[in-house]
């Protein structure tokens, strides 16, 4: 009886949510995309995912032991980082690549800043960008779906001006194209995102503004003059859907207020479109999200909600 009258500081209304629960829900929502990736690219993709997840868990445990912190590997955040990193890798990478990526993502991307909630950049993307800058050869060779032949991604073909035969939107939507493990099957990603929407773990602000602004900018600055761009192609190819729903929306590294999230989404979209249309890389989702991660504190400062009653 005594325990029911705890007087504490606000909030007094508690929700049955925890970091662990939310993280595991996101992990569950990502499973269909992983299954699709394994189905499309074969068992190699499965091993990449497993290696990424296990090495992320081991790194987190070792570092928390070393720094004498509580070992929190079962809160799902390390699993999520490893999973997202693996989803961002091509399927036929050598076995050590996901391991190094996960170690780097957890150690440099997260624990160096003080662990979950302290990191300024999305750890999985930090790992991916490190791998991209270190071993570009492995990170830009992709596999043809249902085949062991290497092929470029649609966006890379577009950049080189070699996109002669048109890839149908349906193929792009279902994932019949070269690409990273988790990004190819838009249908599976959307299913996962829908699940998170219904459960209320995801708000529409970042993903919708992100995707919409990429579509808008690529439509305006098309290859044959203004307003001729193939916006649907740009939305369905690359890692845009994966990035917009699962990585840009990371609670830690995105703005807190709704207004800020809209600014964040538009910024991501603008940078992604600029990199894709005029940049050196064919794909810019990871760089766009990391750049906007860096801008998050300043967005938060200028989009603070007005306290009721103040000027």
């Amino acid at each position, binding site marked *: 009886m005594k325990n029911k009258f705890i007087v504490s500081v606000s909030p007094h209304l508690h929700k049955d949510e925890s970091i662990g629960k939310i993280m595991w829900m996101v992990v569950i929502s990502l499973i269909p995309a992983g299954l699709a990736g394994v189905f499309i690219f074969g068992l190699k993709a499965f091993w990449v995912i497993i290696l990424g997840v296990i090495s992320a868990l081991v790194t987190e445990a070792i570092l928390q032991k070393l720094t004498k912190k509580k070992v929190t590997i079962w809160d799902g955040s390390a699993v999520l980082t490893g999973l997202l990193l693996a989803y961002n890798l091509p399927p036929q990478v050598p076995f050590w690549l996901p391991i190094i990526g996960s170690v780097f993502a957890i150690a*440099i991307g997260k624990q160096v800043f003080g662990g979950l909630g302290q990191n300024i950049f999305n750890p999985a993307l930090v790992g991916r960008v*490190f791998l991209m*800058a*270190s*071993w570009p050869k492995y990170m830009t060779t992709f596999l043809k779906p249902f085949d062991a032949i290497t092929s470029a991604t649609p966006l890379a073909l577009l950049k080189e001006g070699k996109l002669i035969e048109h890839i149908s939107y349906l193929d792009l939507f279902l994932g019949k194209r070269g690409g990273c493990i988790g990004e190819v099957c838009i249908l599976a990603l959307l299913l996962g995102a829908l699940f998170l929407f219904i459960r209320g773990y995801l708000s529409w602000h970042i993903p919708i503004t992100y995707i919409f602004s990429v579509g808008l900018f690529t439509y305006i600055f098309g290859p044959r003059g203004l307003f001729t761009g193939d916006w649907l192609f740009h939305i369905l190819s690359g890692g845009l859907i994966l990035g917009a729903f699962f990585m840009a929306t990371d609670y830690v590294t995105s703005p807190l207020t709704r207004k800020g999230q809209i600014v964040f989404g538009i910024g991501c979209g603008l940078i992604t479109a600029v990199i894709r249309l005029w940049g050196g890389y064919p794909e810019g989702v990871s760089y766009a999200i990391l750049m906007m991660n860096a801008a998050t504190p300043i967005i938060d400062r200028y989009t603070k909600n007005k306290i009721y009653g103040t000027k």
Partner: protein
Amino acid sequence: MKKFFSEFLRGIIKENPTFVLVLGLCPTLAVSVSVINGIGMGIAATFVLLGSNIIIAMLKNIIPDRVRIPCYIVVIATFVTINEMVMKAYSPALNRALGIYVPLIVVNCIVLGRAEAYASKNSVVNSLFDGLGMGVGFTLALILISAIREFLGAGKLLGHTVIKGFQPAFVLGMPSGALLVIGLLLGFFNVLKSKKE
């Protein structure tokens, strides 16, 4: 003699210019791509430090206080010029590799910092040992950073391939890799220091 030795050692460990004073990071970041560049830069900086420390310690009573920085710069620039000419004559390859960072030793914070903080207040012999210690400390720090970067970033040490089949991480050869290595080493040394205290 023991006193001079401790003066010398201080620059290497307790007040290491790179890892404790965190001075002269610009050449450290730019030059530490390979060990040979690191050694070359370290020796060049040590020579300038030694010369400028001795001369400034000698002139400390003559230099007017108000114009001391320009005076220091003139002394330092003299040694840098000598240094550059010698380097151009005897090892043009190294001079090419270090490029603009050789003349930029003039504005290296370590050199000016030691002139301002030490040589202008201490005796000539003490300043000599201080300059030597700081120079060696800087060189050792450069060798450590560049060894890590050359090994992991290019798979080589002093230009020789060490392990066959090793896949170097290109990023460590880039400026971002230098920042990463220096940051991690700084953190590592800070942990060691806090453990000791």
